[in-house]
Every structure is written in C-alpha cells, then in structure tokens.
C-alpha cells in the first residue's frame, strides 16, 4: 500500500500552512518595503528613498544604531560564553559522574527553570547595585546566564547521555586520562549539542529586552532592542520607515547565524544517529 499522501492532500496541506503563516510573512515582507519607500499605502510602496537609513545615523536619545548594534553583539557573545562555561561542566558531571543526590539535583534544576525569574527583579537589582554591576553589560549577561542555566544544563546533558559510555572507557584503556577522554572523545561528539545551546543562547541574548531595559538605564548602554523601542516611544509621531530600517538591522544577525549554521546542524544530527548506531 502506498502510504504517501496523495497530490490533493499535499496541496491542501500546503495551502493551509500558507494561510497560517501568511500574517507573519506579510509583516516580514513589509519591512524591506517600508524601509526604502517614501510612503506606503498598505503594502504598496510609493517612491524610493534612503532617507530612513540616513536618519538612523543620527543618535536617538544619546545612542546611535551602530553603537547599540555593537553592544548587543557584545552582550549576546558574553552571555553565550558565560552560559557555556557554566553549563558544559555541569551537564557532563550530571550525565557521567556518580554524584550523590544526582536525581534530586536534576529535579531541582527543572523547578528552577519553572520558577519565574521576573519575580526576583527587585532582589537582582539590589545585588547588581551592591556588586557595582548595575548599568553594565557584564551584570546583565550574568543575570541572564543565571536564569538560563537550568534549561541549558538539561539540553546539553541530553547530548552527553547519547554518547555511549564505552567510547570514553575505550579512551581510558587506550591510554588517556579522564580529562583527555573528555576532550578528545566526549567533546567532539557533543559538538552538535554545544552548537545548538550556543546558537539558542546567542539568539536569546540578542532578543533579550527586559533585562537591558531595566538594568542598563543610561542611553550610552542601550542594546539594540532597547534602541528600537526608543524609536517608537520617543518620537512624537513614529516614523515607521526608520523603525523598519532599524528592524532589518536587528533581524539580520540571527538570520545569518541560522543560515550559516543550518548545514552544520543537519550534518550534526546525522552524526548523532551514527553515534547511536555504534
């Protein structure tokens, strides 16, 4: 029996999916149109102009687009590195070492993840003031890391769990120390997991609005989401062309990351399968 859907079914499915995604697609389609049009009527542009982009060069409330962009990159990368540094040893230990209370710790991590980090904002503010990290990128990156560690540990632990124990044991018998077995065997095989966690961390740091908004009050510290928001909030009448142009700049890096990483991600998942098959 042929189990593949018939042509009619496939067409209907495609149509339904298209209808569902149309609102989002239209919104994204509007961005480049609005960014280069003198005026838009609905989706239809009238006249071509670069004036929105020129306006972006001027500082808005004390910050420029490029400065905010640079700061957002720094924040995302910093957060990404901090998260990996915290998550990698924790995930390995929870996956491999016979720690006492391991199960309890894993359960606790899940509870922590369910706990709304926002409810701690006042406390976090106090701690940052006390540490002298209020109004600094490092402070925001640390807070963000702390909030995301539980999920990251769980995600990466799953990747370590899939690496057969015998591979590490083989490395030990072949003449390696525990550290070497981790570096030469475990780490290369967990690379897809590291990449996935890093990619999601980067995007999550890039999109983070609330923490920078609250803990980076000076305009000289604005990240890109805060900057874009200021475009909407500070103008008496909002210039949507400028907002659209800024939004394109804002959306580009994560899209580029995934476009570049997609091939790697795919290759990586088939490798994961092979590890299993060993």
């Amino acid at each position, binding site marked *: 029996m042929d189990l593949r859907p018939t042509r009619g079914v496939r067409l209907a499915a495609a149509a339904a999916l298209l209808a569902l995604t149309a609102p989002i697609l239209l919104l994204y389609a509007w961005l480049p149109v609005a960014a280069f049009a003198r005026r838009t009527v609905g989706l239809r542009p009238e006249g071509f102009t670069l004036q929105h982009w020129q306006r972006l060069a001027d500082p808005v409330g004390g910050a420029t687009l490029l400065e905010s962009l640079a700061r957002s990159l720094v924040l995302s990368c910093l957060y990404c590195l901090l998260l990996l540094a915290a998550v990698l040893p924790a995930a390995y230990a929870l996956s491999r070492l016979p720690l006492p209370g391991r199960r309890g710790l894993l359960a606790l991590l899940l509870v922590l993840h369910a706990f709304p980090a926002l409810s701690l904002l006042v406390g976090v503010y106090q701690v940052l003031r006390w540490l002298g990290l209020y109004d600094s990128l490092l402070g925001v990156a640390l807070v963000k890391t702390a909030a995301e560690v539980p999920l990251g540990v769980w995600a990466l632990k799953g990747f370590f769990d899939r690496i057969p124990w015998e591979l590490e044991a*083989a490395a030990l018998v*072949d*003449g390696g120390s525990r550290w070497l077995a981790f570096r030469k065997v475990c780490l290369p095989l967990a690379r897809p997991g590291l990449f996935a966690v890093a990619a999601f961390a980067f995007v999550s740091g890039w999109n983070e609005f609330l923490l920078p908004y609250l803990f980076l009050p000076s305009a000289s510290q604005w990240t890109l989401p805060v900057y874009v928001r200021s475009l909407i909030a500070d103008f008496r009448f909002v210039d949507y062309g400028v907002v659209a142009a800024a939004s394109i700049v804002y959306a580009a890096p994560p899209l580029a990351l995934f476009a570049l990483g997609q091939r790697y991600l795919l290759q990586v998942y088939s490798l994961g399968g092979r*590890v299993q098959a*060993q």
Partner: protein
Amino acid sequence: MRLELRELSKSYGKVTALDRVTLTVEVGELVCLLGPSGSGKTTALLIVAGLEEPTAGEVLLDGVRVNGLPPRHRSVGLVFQNYALYPNMSVGENIAFPLRLKGVGRGDRERRVLEVARMLGIDHLLDRQPWQLSGGQQQRVALARALVKQPRLLLLDEPLSNLDPLLRRSAREEVRLLQRRLGLTTVWVTHDQDEAMTVADRLAVLRDGRLLQYGPPLEVYRRPVDPFVAELLGEVNLLPGCVLPAAGGWLLRLEGCRETLARWEGPPPAGPGPCLVGVRPEDVRVAPGGEAELVDVRPSRGAQMATYRLGQQLLKALVVGREVPPRASLSFDPEGVMTFPPGNATRPVERC
C-alpha cells in the same frame, strides 16, 4: 603477563555482582569467563581493565597489586562488545589513537598501524569512517586498536556476539590463532559455551558472581561440579537414580526402572545410594531391541539426536549410525556418568 584475582568482590548497593572470585591466568594463556548474563563476568573484566574498582579483594598483574591504578597504566588492551570505535575518527585514526596518546612519533605510528592492520587484513580500510564498515570489519578494527600498543594482557568482552553465526565461527578461529602467535595472555568473556569450549585453554564458569569451576574445557565438560555447569556446557540428561552394590562391583539404575544402565568394576563415582545422574547424549549407548521406546529424532552435527522413553523418563542419545532403532536397550558409558547429590537439580526432573 600473569593475572591473578584474589577474593575479588564487587557490589552495587545491595546487588552483588562478584563474590570472592579467585583465579590465576598464566602467561600466554587464554581463559574464557563463561556464564549467563548477570553472572558477573563483564564486571570482572572491567575491574581487571581498571574501569571499575572492586569492593574488596585484589587484582595482581605479574604479582603487583594494581587496585586503584588507572587503566592507562595497566598495559591492557580491551575490545568491547559494541566495539566502541570513535565515530569522529577514521579507521586509521582509531587504530593510531593509543599510539598518539603514548606520544609515539608520526612515522613510527604509521608503520605500526599499517603492520597491525595488515595482520588483521584491514589495511585497505584505513581511510574509511567506522560507520562505513561491516560488523566483522568493525570488530577487526577494535581488535587492531587494542593490539597496536602491544598490550601484555588482552581483554575481550563478548567480542564476537554481534557477528552473524557463520562469521562468528571463522573469527573465533582467527582470534585464537592470533593470540597463540602473539603468545598474548587473554581473558575472553562470553556466554556462548561453544565459543568457550573451542577457544579456551581454561574455562572459568561463573554464576551469580561466584566462580563455580575453573579448569580445562574438556575437564569442565566431562566433570562439571554441579548440574548447572553440566547443562551450561552442553546437552545433558539429568535423572534421579541410584548406585547399588552388585557382585564384583557397582551398578547404576534410574529411579523406577529395573534396567542396569552402567556397571563399575572398581569404585563408583558416587554413592552408594540415591543420586542425580548426569549423562551426555554421546555417552548413551543404543542397542536395538529393548525397553526404551523412540519418541523423537532430529539431526545434530552429522549424527542424530534420538529421544527415548524409558519407564517414565525421557533420555537423549546421540546415535552416529544411520539407523535409529524404534525400540532400544540403553546403557551408559561408565566413564561418562556424572553423579550429583540427590535433589540438586536446576530444572524439575521428571519423576518416575
């Protein structure tokens, strides 16, 4: 390298995996650890490799206590059941890995990898990835990786159990010959009694973490210490019987039957009195005409395995000739009769 286990025990919480196992493997000897799953044979192997620590007891390599010594300082090679080839390295890199860790120079490394690959007939596969290989090839690569650093003790954990039966038999011979040629002390874990019988210099039978018997395969086969070992090593008739004094010697009868099945001029293997009789089908002699009634025949290794009913008992006999008599008189080769204390059966014995 001489391996010695002294009173080796291992428990995981309340579960005892190994219970005071003591045995010695001499230099150049191949010893099979045989037992059903959960008998502790793999645990013993991992302890020798240094991947597990014993709860009590000692492991000695050439007379030196190695408890707590990490695997890399033990000069052992290990082949895992699933081969555990590094999927992120090519075949050549896999085999070269132990040498790289030892700091062997590049030229020397390549020469030794090629040498061991040639020996195992996989030198044309060095550039492949592990997942591109067949099971038999993967097994050879795993063996090459274990041998390349010239270990003084080779440990094999069910090395052939993932191969198909035909390949398993030829690989068995091959590994055995290789081991002979290298004179390499080897511990081979298996649950396959056929494999153990054909390759081992000595056999160690384990059950529930305890060493039941240790000796040359034929001795364990002919003189098992209990009915469990007798059954583990091959087909055996286990029947309640009795050793009785008779004129000029002793004779054996089965419970509820009047026929005499074996006779000894000298002292009997057990008794006198009731016992559990064990006899292998090849030690049952079949003569045409008699009390026993043929129930079933099936081919078995070039001969025929006949099942006879004698009184209420079923008995298996290996008949080499073409003709299997429908009615027969059975007797046992007195040399092949094993006797165990009565009631010491591992499976319910049909009663007379």
